């Protein structure tokens, strides 16, 4: 085992940094909890029939009035906090991961192409990136939201809010990927293996994706982790600004937004438990991202 670990630089470093290991454990637990929420959670907070207003505002079990059925208490609708958080994390991660995936595909694709073709094409892509940067995320979200409402039939709109939000977040994140991919591609373009491929007469698609892409993945992976964290936070912020998800299918961000109402009312758990959960999630993702950067860029150690 020890020998096996030593064989991989990353694994070896991993076993030597307790903070990273803790972060990994937290992240994995949250991912598992989120992925298997329907099997772990005691109630389905999205199923309106499964909980009752009668159970509303119960405190966590260690506080007077708490009951064992709801370990971390309930919110104002009588939803079990644990279940809400698990489902919320599930939704947040779903949005975060898909937004990140879309942003990656879009950004890396455009960045690669910009770096590969250079010249006018590059200039156009970078100006589009500028335009995107000049449009704050909230406005992008409004735009997508509005367009979706304009063109989609009403009965699917509610179900598609997640999609809309995901797209909006993805659009405000792709520029990062595009810029990084472009810069790395410029570097790779000067390397001789790329020139060899060009001389052979290989097509641009093959060169970009088979040759260059694997070589620029390192920095992109780092951005992916950091942006996963930002996507989750951005979703929370959009929720605060009123363009997030509906309260009956809450993400972590929406839970926090709802919890804000109870900041003063004494029901502290409705705000602080999801917040603590979000902090744990974001911090561990970021810590893992930092760790990955260290592995990919040994000079920084």
């Amino acid at each position, binding site marked *: 085992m020890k020998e096996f670990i030593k064989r991989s630089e990353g694994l070896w470093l991993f076993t030597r940094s307790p903070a990273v290991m803790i972060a990994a454990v937290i992240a994995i637990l949250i991912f598992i909890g989120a992925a298997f929420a329907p099997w772990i959670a005691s109630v389905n907070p999205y199923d309106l029939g499964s909980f009752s207003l009668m159970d509303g505002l119960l405190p966590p079990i260690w506080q007077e009035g708490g009951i064992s059925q709801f370990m971390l208490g309930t919110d104002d609708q009588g939803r079990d906090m644990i279940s809400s958080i698990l489902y919320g994390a599930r939704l947040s991660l779903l949005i975060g991961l898909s937004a990140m995936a879309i942003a990656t595909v879009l950004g890396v694709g455009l960045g690669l192409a910009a770096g590969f073709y250079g010249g006018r094409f590059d200039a156009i892509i970078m100006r589009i990136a500028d*335009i995107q940067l000049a449009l704050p995320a909230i406005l992008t979200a409004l*735009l997508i939201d509005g*367009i979706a409402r304009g063109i989609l039939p009403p009965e699917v709109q509610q179900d598609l809010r997640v999609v809309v939000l995901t797209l909006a977040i993805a659009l405000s994140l792709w520029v990062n990927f595009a810029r990084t991919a472009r810069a790395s591609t410029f570097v790779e373009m000067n390397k001789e293996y790329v020139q060899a491929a060009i001389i052979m007469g290989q097509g641009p698609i093959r060169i970009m994706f088979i040759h260059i892409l694997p070589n620029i993945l390192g920095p992109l992976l780092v951005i992916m982790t950091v942006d996963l964290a930002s996507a989750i936070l951005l979703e929370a*912020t959009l929720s605060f600004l009123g363009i997030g998800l509906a309260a009956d299918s809450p993400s972590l961000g929406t839970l926090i937004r709802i919890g804000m109402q109870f900041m003063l009312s004494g029901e502290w758990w409705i705000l602080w438990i999801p917040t603590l959960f*979000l902090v744990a*999630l974001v911090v561990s993702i970021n810590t893992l991202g930092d760790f990955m950067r260290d592995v990919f860029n040994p000079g*920084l150690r």
Partner: protein
Amino acid sequence: MFYFIYKRLIQSVFVMLAVAFLAFSLFRFVGDPITQMTGVETSVVDQERLREELGLNDPFISQFGRFTVDMLQGDFGYSFRTRQPVAEMIASRIPATLELGVVALLISLVVGIPAGVYTALRPRGVITQTILITTLIGISIPTFVIGIMLIFLFGVQLGWLPTFGRGETVNIGFWESSFFSIDGWRALILPAVTLGVYQLTLTMRLVRAQMMDVMRSDYIRFATARGVPMRQLYFRHALANTMVPVITIIGLQFGGVIAFSIVTESVFQWPGMGLLFLESIRFVDIPVMGVYLVVIAFFFVVVNLLVDLLYVAIDPRLRV
């Protein structure tokens, strides 16, 4: 170099037009201004008449054309909600947002750069790890929660700082500034910290990474080998070379600061453009939203241009 700036300007105009177009097209979807402008008892007929008067029934392209042409002539139109000239409304809010943004950015630089340098030079230290984790937690809590926490801690609990607004301001010409009174500064602290904390973390981490990179470069090794004093080595040699990429990102971040100030301003009831914009969304005040976006794009473009010029100032290799 002049050619470079000239090219930049052309591109900037293009960016602004595109933002205006995108922005304008999104307003069609935000909601119906008319129902927000009128009371409950206003008849449907009257609403329709108003809609016609405001040109909201015209085809989209002619609305956008009118908007652009008017704007190019310096006519920014009137707010649907308050009937005031949009130019005045936005102009009166610009100082608040800019001052907030600049102070937030300054906080992020003044704290972030030294922290970045420190954590780069002592990568294994306990203090470094503490700083890194604390800031990470700082950016993991949504801005709006942090803002309210600060308000309750420093405003209500300790009673040291105001909970909302800009405090006392001083007018210098058209510019309404909080920089010239104690009260103004006190009011500025909390929102600026709230807004700056995210940027601070970014700046710090960026400076740290760049600094660590630069410290490994040949010229630093050479400067070490010839015994240049450590302080000079860190701050004159290493930091200056760190600044070029850092400035780019900070420039880009300024756009982010302005955008995120929407949240901060709404939490602190800070009378800036972001607050105005949020209200405008609520009331579907299309002219205000449109101009706001163009102004934001303008800031972005100007900051980008400044960043380019700053490059030239820092890096002699670019002075052709």
